[in-house]
């Protein structure tokens, strides 16, 4: 960023940040989209690579992987990843709609923001209901 190298650039006025704005659904899901995306990238892809690596390494390595993922901490991680996946998917679809220029009316925007939160919780519950019913 060029401006950071200019003398006096640090003293330039900054635009208001999180602590200034009143919280609303659109702001919340925008932040959730970034947080869940980062979580899926850092934790989700690590679990993916461990899973694939364990499959290649053999039955013993796979048993270790399955054991850790079946432990209480592992299950918390997996449920968290499931929720992050659905939340990121829902807010991602919301972004596709916003990208074509639709859905910016205050009420519509707030409604669909809340719908992504409700939907992601329901889809996470549904996914784990399917898993536990197996």
């Amino acid at each position, binding site marked *: *960023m*060029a*401006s*950071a190298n*200019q003398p006096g650039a640090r003293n330039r006025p900054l635009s208001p940040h999180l602590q200034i704005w009143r919280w609303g659904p659109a702001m919340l899901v925008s932040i959730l989209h*970034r947080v869940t*995306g*980062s979580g*899926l*990238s850092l934790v989700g*892809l690590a679990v*993916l*690579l461990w899973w*694939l*690596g364990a*499959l*290649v390494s053999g*039955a013993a390595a*796979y*048993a270790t992987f*399955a054991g850790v993922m079946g432990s209480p901490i592992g299950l918390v991680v997996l449920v968290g990843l499931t929720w992050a*996946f659905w939340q990121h*998917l829902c807010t*991602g*679809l919301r*972004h*596709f709609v916003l*990208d074509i220029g639709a859905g910016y009316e205050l009420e519509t925007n707030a409604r669909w923001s809340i719908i992504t939160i409700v939907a992601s919780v329901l889809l996470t519950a549904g*996914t784990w209901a*399917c*898993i536990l019913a*197996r």
Partner: protein
Amino acid sequence: MGNGTSIGRVRGLGSAHSGAGNWLQERVTGLASLIVSLYLLFSLLMLPSWNYQTVRGWISAPVPATAMVLFVIVNFWHARSGLRVVIEDYQHDSGKLFYLVALDFAAFAGGAFGVLSLIRLALGA
């Protein structure tokens, strides 16, 4: 064209014609990720068991193996696009370039490991 503020120095120069690249990649890989991720989720839910033999048998078959290679490429690409934006938003000093290069290295390394693992599984290593 002034030489005072940052905006003054760039005003009138027009578009760089490359700014939308990562933005567009993020959208296209996001759409692709939607497809392959749902494929993986439903495939796993429909497997009769998640023991070693069953999962390995499933992932070695041609169609699931192809889908999983796409899954790895698409999701590492999408993660790289998204985390790039996160770094660019919060990292303004000289460390930015380091983080961006580290991200590229990590994304390619992770993707390579995933694809290699899947090739070995598909070829029955």
